[in-house]
């Protein structure tokens, strides 16, 4: 085991876990141990190429080389074929970034998605993480609000409400305690970018909520997560613990004296079957009184994750 360990990425997004990514990772570790190969296994987020999950990537001098969809039973053959050198194989797609589906995308809020280990503070920092928070800590709240107003940032929940207007309203409200509430309850079939954000880049959400809190004078945050997303609950919970331990959340953020603590409202699925009107046969009277505003999505720029803020 004298050679430097080779870095292999196996996603931990639930779309990968649900098709056996943990088993692929376990098999890879066992096979490498058996062969005396030093392995640096990174559990990254998903690149979003779901038809290729489990999408395994190997770090090579040519960049990251993609293989997928990999099943546990493919691992030994892949290693035989020279997986760790990025060698050719029926499952090989070449450099990940050159896969046409990815090559034609310009990623903004998903820039880190699938690239980093979502729970690595070092990865987050190395990919522009916390730069927005650091900038915000150096400004008064009204300057933050003005910058967000000037940026034209809007909500991505469908109404495209101007984020700065919302923040300005909350900043002007008088209250003993203000909260930032992130509604991550996306129940519409076909939309799961909130899930991917929480599982694939949770510190972005924490940073965005903290910036919103600084801007409006809130000191507590809530993330409302669907119980249908057990992996998002686990990843967000761990991310909060790590952010808190590193001083990005708490009573004295990065020594600034500013405070923001985060809690989870693990949302239990409502009896009205995800409260979608078109599932009316499963709906129950009374559900409407619990109707919440539509979910909000992380938006581009300054990694402001645009949580909906309420007093």
């Amino acid at each position, binding site marked *: 085991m004298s050679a430097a360990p080779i870095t292999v990425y196996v996603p931990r997004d639930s779309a990968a876990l649900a098709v056996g990514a943990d088993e692929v990772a376990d098999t890879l570790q066992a096979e490498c141990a058996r062969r005396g190969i030093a392995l640096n296994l990174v559990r990254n987020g998903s690149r979003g190429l779901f038809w290729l999950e489990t999408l395994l990537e190997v770090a090579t001098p040519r960049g990251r080389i993609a293989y997928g969809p990999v099943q546990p039973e493919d691992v030994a053959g892949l290693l035989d074929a020279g997986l760790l050198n990025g060698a050719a194989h029926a499952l090989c797609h070449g450099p990940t970034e050159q896969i046409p589906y990815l090559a034609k995308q310009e990623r903004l809020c998903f820039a880190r998605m699938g690239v980093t280990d979502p729970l690595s503070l070092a990865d987050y920092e190395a990919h522009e993480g916390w730069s927005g928070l650091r900038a915000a800590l150096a400004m008064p709240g009204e300057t933050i609000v003005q910058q967000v107003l000037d940026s034209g940032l809007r909500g991505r929940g469908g109404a495209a409400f101007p984020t700065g207007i919302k923040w300005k309203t909350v900043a002007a409200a008088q209250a003993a305690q203000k909260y930032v509430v992130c509604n991550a309850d996306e129940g519409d079939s076909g939309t799961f970018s909130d899930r991917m954000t929480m599982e694939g880049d949770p510190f972005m959400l924490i940073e965005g909520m903290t910036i919103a809190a600084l801007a409006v004078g809130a000191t507590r945050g809530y993330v409302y997560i669907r119980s249908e997303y*057990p992996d998002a609950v686990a990843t967000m919970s761990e991310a909060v613990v790590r952010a808190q331990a590193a001083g990005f959340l708490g009573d004295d953020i990065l020594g600034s004296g500013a405070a923001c603590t985060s809690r989870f409202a693990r949302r239990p699925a409502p009896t009205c079957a995800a409260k979608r009107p078109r599932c009316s046969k499963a709906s129950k009277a009374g559900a409407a009184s619990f109707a919440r505003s539509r979910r909000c999505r992380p938006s581009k720029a300054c990694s402001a994750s645009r949580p909906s803020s309420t007093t």
Partner: protein
Amino acid sequence: MSAQPAAANAATSPETITRTVLARRAQEPGALLPILHEVQDALGHVPREVVPQIAEALNLSRAEVHGVVTYYHHFRSEAPGRHVVQVCRAEACQAMGADALFEHAEQRLGCHAHGGHGSTSDDGSFTLNPVFCLGLCASSPAIVIDERLHARMTPERFDQLIGKLEAAA
């Protein structure tokens, strides 16, 4: 939230467990949901008899606590089967055969869900629930077995997974 925590706590009554949770949580702001989660995580459900206990500790009416427990699909008032199986029935999964998969699951598990709600097999092995969107629309149909997600599900793979659970029992 494991499907079978009851055995581990057989020696401890629901009231005792609830008291422990309340002692730790009752003073927190917005404590009701976290308390209900912890009670269900420990007991597998939120028994009706602990509702007055929770209400009293939080200075809420029983009706308010009952309302929250019954509003959310996630909270159960009855103990579930040893394994909880959820099959997504939202649009993307429906387009990929989720309805047929759900019927297959009903037959295989001996669970007959009425009116879209969950049901437990007579032998208490399985509870089958419909669920609406697991965020795995691109890999549908998707199911959950005891909090583990499985995508691109087929009746054959479903039977394999269930067979493994039965063999381990």
